[in-house]
């Protein structure tokens, strides 16, 4: 695995490239403007690097409201257009319970308990499944 620590960094949001997968770690309480900037930056990074997978680690996020939920869904939709699949990893149980009651279903967002599971999911998943983007995926 290629740990590129000199990779792009968005504000205080660490973005790490692990081979064919981009790992983004969200932490703490994001401003709306930071989240929006992040959405744009991740889209550009996915396009620029041509990675086939995107893992968003939210284990350090204490709350997901409809705004952040929508940002996550839009990041995944954009990545999907670029033939990259997105997995949201490590959502805290209290956050998951709250999202259900809020009524936010986040269609199209795949989740995994941890980044490790997310990486496995991306590495092992059926190439014929999910996002049929315009570009051939190479792995």
């Amino acid at each position, binding site marked *: 695995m290629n740990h590129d620590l000199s990779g792009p960094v968005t504000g205080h949001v660490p973005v790490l490239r692990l081979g064919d997968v981009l790992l983004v770690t969200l932490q703490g*309480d994001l*401003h*709306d*403007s930071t989240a929006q900037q992040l959405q744009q930056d991740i889209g550009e990074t996915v396009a620029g690097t041509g990675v086939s997978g995107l893992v968003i680690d939210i284990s350090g996020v*204490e*709350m*997901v*409201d*409809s*705004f952040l*939920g*929508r940002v996550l869904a839009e990041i995944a939709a954009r990545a999907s257009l670029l033939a990259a699949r997105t997995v949201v990893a490590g959502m*805290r*149980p*209290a*956050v998951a*319970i*709250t999202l259900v*009651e*809020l*009524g*936010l279903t986040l269609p199209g967002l795949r989740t995994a308990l941890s980044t490790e599971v997310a990486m496995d999911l991306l590495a092992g998943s059926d190439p014929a499944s999910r996002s049929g983007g315009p570009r051939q995926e190479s792995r």
Partner: protein
Amino acid sequence: METAAGVDACLPIRSDMDLVWVRQHVRQAAGLLGFGLVEQTKLVTAASELARNTLVHGGGGRMETAGLTNGHTRGLRLTFSDEGPGIPDLERALGDGYTSGDGLGMGLGGARRLVHEFAVDSTPGVGTKVTVVSWADRSPRPRGEF
């Protein structure tokens, strides 16, 4: 019973930075009052939705917080108020999926599901006040007045 220090406050809601302070204050206050992690997260999320509505739809305003007691149960009341355009059709606004902007329309109805008590007082042209209460202990569920 005494109210824990640091619970009662009035915070401005004028920027997305203020939304961060609102969430932080609600989390801290709920923690001081003995809310469990799930109840805390629900209340913070509801506060985030309502504060964003105050900012985006109401043109800015404020949140007031007050600690409550009902027997042995402690609660937190949050009041979001603005002098914005008001909500002409409250029934519709509370329904899931209705938005006058480009949101998902989940905020108001979702926030109602996340708290124990919920009231909206809105007059077109005058403003909107949304009051919510949650209790640290869900059972027995107090049906107190605001």
